[in-house]
């Protein structure tokens, strides 16, 4: 009797183990590795579309990646999220911000360029404003998003280039900037396409300066994608797979402009015309993932803004930049 009970218990154990193995087998074959991505400014074309398209078209899945996206408010938050290990990879963050974080001891590695040059950001004034070009804004109040941001950087370079001294005012994101301009809190504000292009079309505001006009910035990697150093050491192959999927998505975006415009419009609840106008601001060459160019520019800028007190050495930069 007792022997029968032992045989029954043994058989049940065996069956349970077999069952678990059978259940696990298909999972193991098709298992996707979760990749936590911190992406700033939800909805902007360059920060959002490549990843969203890579996910939609299944490029990430084909590389064995299941994306888990965190939207952040900007570079400072993205760097902190990745440094803390809450996200594995941070996208579209100012090169000088990542360099500053690295110099201050944060475990980060730059894995690719995100945008080269500044094809997107523009500054505008009210339609009834007497100012026609950036040169007219000498001594006037001009808005930028936040200290140390791309807009802050471009505005300072433009001021140097055109030899003007505007009063720089931190106004926040495009909606805050628009409010500040329309209520005359500042003389000029900034935006990024396609936000407020409809207002330009309607004649309510007038563009006075585009970041693309700055020749000195055309070959500068303005924003980069970066990873947590510990994560990169342990998952280098996964990071490379992610970049492969991202590159495929960027190619797909430019090979299929209609589909891209439709997705961009749907994602942001824009009209297709508005989305198309926004898409036109971004030439494909601005979204190349490699090479990472003119790092010296970002280092000089970080020094100029007193974000760092001394430039990183060549060895330190070699450790930081792992772009292939």
């Amino acid at each position, binding site marked *: 009797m007792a022997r029968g009970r032992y045989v029954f218990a043994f058989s049940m154990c065996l069956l349970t183990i077999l069952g678990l193995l059978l259940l696990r087998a298909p999972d193991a074959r098709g298992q996707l590795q979760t990749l936590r991505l911190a992406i700033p400014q939800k909805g902007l074309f360059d920060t959002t579309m490549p990843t969203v398209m890579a996910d939609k078209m299944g490029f990430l899945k084909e590389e064995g990646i299941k994306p888990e996206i965190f939207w952040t408010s900007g570079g400072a938050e993205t760097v902190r999220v990745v*440094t803390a290990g809450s996200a594995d990879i941070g996208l579209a963050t100012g090169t000088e911000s990542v360099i500053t974080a690295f110099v201050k001891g944060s475990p980060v590695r730059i894995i690719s360029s995100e945008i080269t040059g500044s094809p997107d950001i523009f500054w505008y004034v009210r339609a009834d404003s007497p100012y026609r070009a950036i040169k007219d804004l000498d001594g006037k109040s001009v808005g930028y998003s936040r200290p140390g941001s791309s807009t802050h950087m471009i505005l300072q370079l433009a001021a140097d280039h055109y030899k003007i001294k505007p009063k720089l005012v931190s106004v926040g994101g495009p909606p805050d900037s628009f409010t500040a301009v329309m209520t005359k809190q500042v003389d000029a504000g900034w935006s990024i396409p396609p936000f407020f292009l409809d207002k330009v079309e309607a004649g309510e505001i007038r563009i006075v300066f585009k970041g693309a006009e700055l020749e000195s910035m055309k070959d500068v990697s303005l924003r980069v994608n970066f990873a947590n150093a510990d994560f990169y050491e342990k998952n280098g192959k996964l990071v490379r797979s992610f970049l492969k999927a991202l590159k495929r998505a960027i190619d797909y975006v430019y090979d299929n402009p209609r589909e891209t415009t439709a997705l961009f419009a749907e994602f942001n609840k824009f009209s297709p015309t508005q989305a198309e106008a926004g898409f036109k601001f971004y030439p494909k060459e601005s979204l190349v993932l490699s090479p990472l160019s003119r790092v010296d520019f970002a280092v000089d800028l970080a020094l100029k803004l007193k974000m760092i007190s001394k430039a990183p050495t060549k060895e330190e930069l070699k450790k930081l930049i792992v772009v292939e």
Partner: protein
Amino acid sequence: MESWREKALRWIFVAIFLAVIEVIVRLNLVDRIFLTSPSLIAVAAWDELFSGELLSLFLLTAYEVAIAFIVASIVGLCAGCALWRYSLLGRAYDELLGALFASPLILLYPIFLVIFGRGINAIIAMGTLYGMIPIVLNTHQGLRDVDQVYLKVGKGMRLSERQILRHILFPAAWPMIIGGLKLGLTYILISVIALEFLVDIGGVGTLASKGYFWFNTELLYLGVVGAILLSMLFVTLLGKASARLLSRE
């Protein structure tokens, strides 16, 4: 009066807390982008003090808080008295003010920027609104809670309404009113510094903002320390003022 034991106990805790942070940072147990040591904050404070910027930022925030507190106190006390004096108003607005007090009024800051301009006036106005509500509510509550027996005694002694207000109502309601003033001050400090941080205008909040966005952790915490010092300064001043008023009564 505070005993030396109470003071010692408080400062021993502060010293241990700071020492633990110093050790954690020096042993690199936490990333410097998140936390920095008190000694490095002190060095940054010295540098900023030497450049003259720290003092001007500190004074600017103190000025904003002081103006907002004075306006909020005057309007709040008058409004609280009015709610008590005219019970219909009290019944109509008490719950509404309570609901407003619990809502995140800071989200209204863009409207304040539009109305008052992109400057310290908007910060002072926002702080005034934030600080005024608890002062109104506590003044109303304090006056309402005064024991009716005292009022009957006052009337029996043929005191005028003004005398009753001065010698009976206010002394009896004072602890509650002081609670409202302290709460109002706290909310003013929070809103002023939060708005300075958000819109990059004004005093120590901008210092913290610069520190956060430029990854300068020392500056970030210097802003926080500045806010704590301001809070201590104002709470001490308010405590002394209320003690003096109570002792007179």
